[in-house]
């Protein structure tokens, strides 16, 4: 899997070679970087997590600093209408990912008109309001996007795909405007990434050999309403033939899991000069089976996850945001009394400089959803808390 992962980095090399060698019709005295309108950006976030009641995402009850992200990108605009870019990303989320770098996105983008553009390569999936900005701490007031809608441990599943996307903005006159995207692609998963760790925790086997999907497709439609600042969005993705092959080290039994998945989001956002209110609902539907041929076992896979949240950010000053929110999540939408979690959240974001933030977030959770039994051998508390601190610098 590592070999396949590194082969994908050839895509990054190809993109950068195109950027460096294709000339732009610029005057002699203009440097090549200026001719390409080359720019580089990056960010680094460092955090601390401590939980009370349960270990979350790993060993957190005693506190951990295994909580950071970093990214670096290069973007060029060699011609009008064209943008080329690539970004490397790494994160450590307690026991997930552990700093494994990956090619986050790498694309060639051609925007013919406002109404239509095309992006080819690896790109972030436009799911919900914030999936594309999942890892961008500087883009929000809170530390965590609501895990009820944006799962932390299965990030790899829906963060990006390799394929093509069409997108654009359509002016509908007095009715506002419509923003849209439609895409198709497929993705390979690294066995060193956090998602493989998470899949093994789901009970398919303690060693995961391979995770693949056949293809995926999806899109979004966002209505910028005539009421300035109010936006409504529908988005979703379909994953065909998601498979995970694993085995149990104790017995040597192999398991083969196959499923098709649909993710559907309904979102609303109201952005005013001093307050932003966002609300989203996610419904996930997975159907398939896990086959353990050595034990003549076929276990149906029925996934009916449901999650929602509403939150408010008060942009109190240019250097201060205050954030509050409530979240709800249910492992089975048809059984709201089953495994679930209700959370209220409060956070403060200090921005001493425009490129430096300091955040603190408190989460008070009622419910066991999201807690791994393996991390809590002494039992799972139904009421638990999270304190998170984070600082981010970007350029």
């Amino acid at each position: 899997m590592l070999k396949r992962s590194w082969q994908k980095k050839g895509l990054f090399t190809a993109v950068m070679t195109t950027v460096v060698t294709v000339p732009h019709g610029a005057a002699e005295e203009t440097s090549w970087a200026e001719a390409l309108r080359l720019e580089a950006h990056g960010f680094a976030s460092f955090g601390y997590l401590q939980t009370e009641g349960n270990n979350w995402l790993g060993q957190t009850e005693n506190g951990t600093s295994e909580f950071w992200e970093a990214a670096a990108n290069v973007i060029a605009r060699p011609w009008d209408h064209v943008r080329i870019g690539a970004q490397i990303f790494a994160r450590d989320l307690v026991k997930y990912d552990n700093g494994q770098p990956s090619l986050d996105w790498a694309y060639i983008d051609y925007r013919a008109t406002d109404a239509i553009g095309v992006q080819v390569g690896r790109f972030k999936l436009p799911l919900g309001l914030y999936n594309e900005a999942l890892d961008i701490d500087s883009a929000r007031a809170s530390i965590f996007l609501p895990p009820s809608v944006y799962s932390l441990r299965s990030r790899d599943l829906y963060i990006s795909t390799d394929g093509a996307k069409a997108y654009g903005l359509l002016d509908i006159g007095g009715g506002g405007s419509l923003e849209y995207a439609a895409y198709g692609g497929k993705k390979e998963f690294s066995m060193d990434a956090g998602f493989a760790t998470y899949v093994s925790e789901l009970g398919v086997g303690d060693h995961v050999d391979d995770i693949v999907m056949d293809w995926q497709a999806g899109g979004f439609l966002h209505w910028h309403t005539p009421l300035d600042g109010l936006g409504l969005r529908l988005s979703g993705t379909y994953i065909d033939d998601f498979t995970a092959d694993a085995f149990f080290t104790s017995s040597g039994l192999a398991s083969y899991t196959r499923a098709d998945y649909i993710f559907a989001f309904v979102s609303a956002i109201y952005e005013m000069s001093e307050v932003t209110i966002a609300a989203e609902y996610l419904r996930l539907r997975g159907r398939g089976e896990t086959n353990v041929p050595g034990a003549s076992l076929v276990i149906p896979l029925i996934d009916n996850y449901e999650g929602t949240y509403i939150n408010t950010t008060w942009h109190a000053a240019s250097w201060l945001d205050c954030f509050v929110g409530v979240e709800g999540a249910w492992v089975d939408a048809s059984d709201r009394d089953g495994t679930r979690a209700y959370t209220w959240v409060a956070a403060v974001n200090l921005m001493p400089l425009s490129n430096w933030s300091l955040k603190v977030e408190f989460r008070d959770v009622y419910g066991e959803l999201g807690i791994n039994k393996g991390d809590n051998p002494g039992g799972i508390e139904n009421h638990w808390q999270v304190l998170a601190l984070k600082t981010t610098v970007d350029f």
Partner: protein
Amino acid sequence: MRYLILLLLLSFQMSLSAAVVVAHNDVPVSNLDESKIRDFLLGRTTAFANGQTVVIVLCMDSAADDAMKKIVDRSANLLLRGWKRLVFSGSGAMPLQAATIQDAIALVARTPGAITILPLVESVPQTCRIIPLGGAGK
């Protein structure tokens, strides 16, 4: 006398709007409505009608902030946060930034395709001009 009255009326209207677009001379538009400016500042559109790339210059001065809020109902810092979301998610390129109004004007003056939102300014260099705001607003 007629021209003086016209100049006074124009000054009156501009002071009423309290926000102007300063653009490099090669920007291929003679006026811009607020909805179009909003689309540029929020990164929803990235080019003028003739396909020329728009270069946004964000002025981080507090006086420019008031002008920005009149157009997009967001401060420059909040806009910058939105642009970071676009840049780090692979959906855009970062606008240029200027600390002061004078820096913003100088940056626009030397950057083809550049536009910026400022409070009413008295004069601009020869390589840029003030574009009136008009048409459909908020």
